[in-house]
C-alpha cells in the first residue's frame, strides 16, 4: 500500500499518524492512536508522493515562487525551454532588481540588470507558458513575500517553495513554506512539480503575556531570537502559538514568520484561524466562490491537534519586553532600547571573538546606552514590514514631525495595492511632508541588488531583516528595529525609544 493511501485510510479510521517511518530502514511504525499531529505534519503528510528512506520524502508542491535574477531565475528557465509539469503552480515577480524611483516607469534604464529590462517581454512569454508573472506595470506588483499573501496566491494548507530564503514568510498563512529551491532545484520543481525534502523536527514557540505600547511582531521576533540564538531554530519547523499570536493581524504574523529564517529555521508557521480566512476572503487568487466553503472546511482541519507532542516547546513571555534594537551583525545581537551595548568579556563561553568582531564592525562602545547613537539613514520597507499596518504605525509616529537634518529617510510600500491604500489614507503626504522619500515597491536597500544602498560608512536604522556585514551596502552599518522605532530614529536623528518620543519626553 502506498503511504498516502495508508494515511488517508488511517485518518478515515480515526488513527492519526505522526512519523510513521523509523530510522532509515523504511519499516513502518504506526504510532499510538492517541498521538495527534501538528499543523506541519498534517500538511507534509498530505503532500507525500513517496518516501525515499528515513524522514526524506518526495513531495508535491502547491506553489513555487521563481526568483527574478541570479542562478535559477526566470531567465535561465526561458533559455532552457523546459517542459513545465504544472505551470499554474509557479509564479514570479521582478522585485530584487527594480529601481524604487518614481521615475522607473518612464526611465526604464533605472531598473538595472538585463533581468528587469526585458521583464515585460519575459512576463509575456511566461504567461504564454501558463506561469503568473508580475512586472512593474502590473497593478499587483510588489515584493514576492508581500504579493503572495496580498493576492491570495498563498493559502492555508499549501506547500510553498521558492528560491528566496524569506519564503518562510508565507507560513503565516497556515501553510508549510521554505526557500532554497534555486539552481538545479528550480529546474527539477518546474519539470516535476515535486521536491525532495527531509522532514524537520517540530518546535512550538508559545508567545504569552501582553505586548506593551509600541511593541510589535518585529520586537517579538527579535526578542525570541535574542533568547534562542541566531541558530536557535536550526533543524526545526517552528509553529508560533499562544494568545499574543492569536491576537495578531495577518500583517504581524507575516513579520513573525519572515524573521523565522533569522534563527536558521527555514519554516515558520501560524495555524490558520478566522483572522486568516477573513484576510483571504475576496482576494484575487483566493479560492473562487464555488470552492470557498469547501476550502474553508479543509482549512479548519489543519491546526495542530490539542494532544500533539512537539519535539521542543519554548514559551516566551512578552509582558515586560520593550522595543528591541540590534547592536551587532546578526539578529541575536539585540537589546531592549533602554539597555546598553554588551561587553565582549561578558559574552557566553566561546563567543567573545564573535561579539568583538561584531562591535568592531558596528563601531559601538561596550557599556554605552544603545539609545542616543547618531544615525545617517532610515530604511522602511522590505518583505519584513512594509504592509499597511506597518505603514500606519510609521505614519502615526511621523505625523506632524520632521525628519532630522541630514538623515536620508525612505519609505517603500511592499506592493502596489498597499501603496494605493496608503495614498488613499493620506499616509504618503504625512511621510513626504516630514521629509521622507515615498518610493515605489521593491526590495531596494534591504539587500541592494538594484544598486540602492546605504552609503559606505553610514549608520542606518532599518525595519528589514538582516544586519549582516555589508548587507545594505559595503561598509554600511545596520540596526534592525521595528517600523515605528525606525520612524522615530528618522525624526530624532538618533536611535531613540519610540515610546518616549510619543509621550513627548526628551529623547
Amino acid at each position: 500500500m502506498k503511504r498516502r493511501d495508508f494515511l488517508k485510510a488511517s485518518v478515515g479510521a480515526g488513527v492519526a499518524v505522526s512519523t510513521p517511518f523509523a530510522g532509515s530502514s523504511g519499516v513502518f511504525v504506526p504510532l499510538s492512536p492517541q498521538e495527534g499531529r501538528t499543523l506541519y505534519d498534517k500538511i507534509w503528510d498530505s503532500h507525500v508522493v513517496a518516501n525515499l528512506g528515513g524522514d526524506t520524502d518526495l513531495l508535491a508542491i502547491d506553489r513555487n515562487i521563481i526568483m527574478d535574477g541570479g542562478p535559477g531565475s526566470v531567465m535561465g528557465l526561458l533559455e532552457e525551454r523546459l517542459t513545465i509539469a504544472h505551470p499554474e503552480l509557479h509564479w514570479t515577480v521582478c522585485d530584487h532588481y527594480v529601481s524604487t524611483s518614481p521615475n522607473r516607469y518612464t526611465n526604464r534604464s533605472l531598473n538595472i540588470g538585463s533581468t528587469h529590462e526585458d521583464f515585460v517581454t519575459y512576463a509575456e512569454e511566461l504567461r504564454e507558458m501558463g506561469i503568473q508573472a508580475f512586472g512593474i506595470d502590473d497593478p499587483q506588483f510588489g515584493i514576492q513575500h508581500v504579493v503572495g499573501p496580498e493576492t491570495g496566491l498563498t493559502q492555508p494548507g499549501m506547500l510553498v517553495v521558492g528560491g528566496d530564503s524569506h519564503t518562510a514568510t508565507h507560513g503565516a498563512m497556515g501553510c508549510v513554506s521554505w526557500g532554497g529551491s534555486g539552481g538545479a532545484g528550480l529546474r527539477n520543481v518546474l519539470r516535476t512539480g515535486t521536491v525532495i525534502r527531509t522532514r524537520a523536527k517540530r518546535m512550538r514557540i508559545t508567545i504569552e503575556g501582553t505586548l506593551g505600547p509600541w511593541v510589535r511582531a518585529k520586537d517579538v521576533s527579535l526578542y525570541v531570537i535574542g533568547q534562542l540564538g541566531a541558530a536557535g531554530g536550526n533543524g526545526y519547523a517552528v509553529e508560533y502559538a499562544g494568545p499574543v499570536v492569536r491576537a495578531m493581524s495577518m500583517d504581524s504574523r507575516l513579520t513573525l514568520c519572515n524573521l523565522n529564517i533569522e534563527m536558521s529555521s527555514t519554516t515558520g508557521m501560524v495555524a490558520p484561524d478566522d483572522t486568516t480566512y477573513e484576510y483571504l476572503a475576496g482576494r484575487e487568487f483566493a479560492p473562487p466562490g464555488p470552492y470557498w466553503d469547501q476550502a474553508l472546511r479543509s482549512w479548519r482541519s489543519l491546526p495542530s491537534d490539542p494532544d500533539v507532542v512537539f519535539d521542543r516547546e519554548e514559551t516566551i513571555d512578552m509582558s515586560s519586553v520593550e522595543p528591541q534594537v540590534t547592536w551587532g551583525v546578526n539578529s541575536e545581537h539585540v537589546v531592549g532600547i533602554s539597555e546598553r551595548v554588551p561587553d565582549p568579556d561578558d559574552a557566553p563561553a566561546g563567543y567573545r571573538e564573535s561579539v568583538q568582531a561584531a562591535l568592531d564592525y558596528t563601531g559601538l562602545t561596550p557599556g554605552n546606552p544603545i539609545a542616543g547613537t547618531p544615525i545617517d539613514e532610515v530604511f522602511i520597507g522590505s518583505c519584513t514590514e512594509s504592509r499597511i499596518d506597518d505603514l500606519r504605525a510609521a505614519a502615526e509616529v511621523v505625523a506632524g514631525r520632521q525628519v532630522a537634518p541630514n538623515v536620508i529617510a525612505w519609505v517603500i510600500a511592499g506592493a502596489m495595492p498597499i501603496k494605493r491604500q496608503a495614498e488613499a489614507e493620506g499616509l504618503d503626504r504625512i511621510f513626504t511632508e516630514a521629509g521622507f522619500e515615498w518610493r515605489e515597491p521593491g526590495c531596494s536597500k534591504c539587500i541592494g541588488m538594484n544598486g540602492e544602498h546605504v552609503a559606505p560608512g553610514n549608520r542606518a536604522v532599518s525595519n528589514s531583516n538582516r544586519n549582516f556585514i555589508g548587507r545594505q551596502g559595503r561598509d554600511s552599518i545596520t540596526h534592525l528595529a521595528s517600523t515605528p522605532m525606525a520612524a522615530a530614529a528618522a525624526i530624532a536623528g538618533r536611535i531613540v525609544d519610540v515610546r518616549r518620543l510619543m509621550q513627548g519626553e526628551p529623547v
Partner: protein
Amino acid sequence: MTNLQTPQTQRFVRHIGIAAPFHLRHNVDTDVIAPLSPNPNMTGLSAGERAFEPIRYLSNGSENPDFVLNQEAYRNASILIAGNNFGTGSSRGSGVSYPMAFGIRVVIAPSFGPIFYLNAAQRGMLAITLDGEVVARLGDWAVSNPGVEMMVDLERNVIEVPGLATISFSIDARIRDKLLLGATDELDEMLQHSEGARELRNEDRNTRPWIYTNGTGANR
C-alpha cells in the same frame, strides 16, 4: 550558459588538505561568504577572490592581515574549521560556489545554516557537523599546526589528524551517497516516481480544486 544546469560535481571520496582555523567566529553569514555589494576599490574579482571579501579585504582593497585565509600558512587551505551556524542567511548558491572556487572542499562546524547545508551537498562540498568540543579541538590543532595537512575520508566517515586520535563523523546517508558518486542531481530519482506524482496530483485536483484555479487569465 544557462543558469539551470546541474553543477558539475566531482566525486568526493577522500580529501587531504590544509585546515584553516576559523572556529571562533560564529554565525558567519552568506553576505560575508558571498557578498552582493562590491568593494568600490576592487573590480573584476573572480568568484574565488570574492569569497569572504568583506572580511578578507579592507575597504582600500588591501588584504586584511587578521583574516585567517590571508595568513601564509593557510593561503592554500582547502578545509575550513568553522564556528556555529556557518553559512546562515540567504539561499544564494554563491555561498557555496565562491568558497569552492577559492579551493575549499570541506567545512567542519558544530552546525550549518540550513540552506547552505543543502546547497553544499548539491554542489559537491562536504559539510561535516561535529560536536562543538571536537570542532574546537580541531581548530586549536590547526592553530598549533599551521599548514599541516589532515585527511577527511568519506568512505570510512573519519577524519585523520596527525597527532590526534581518529575522529569519526556521521552524515545523512543520502548526502553521503551522492557525494561519493558525484551525482548530486535529484531529477532521475524524482522521475522514477512520476506515476505516483501524477496520481496524487489527479486526486488533489478533485479534493482541492481551488489550488489549481490561478492559471494565467483564469481570474485576471
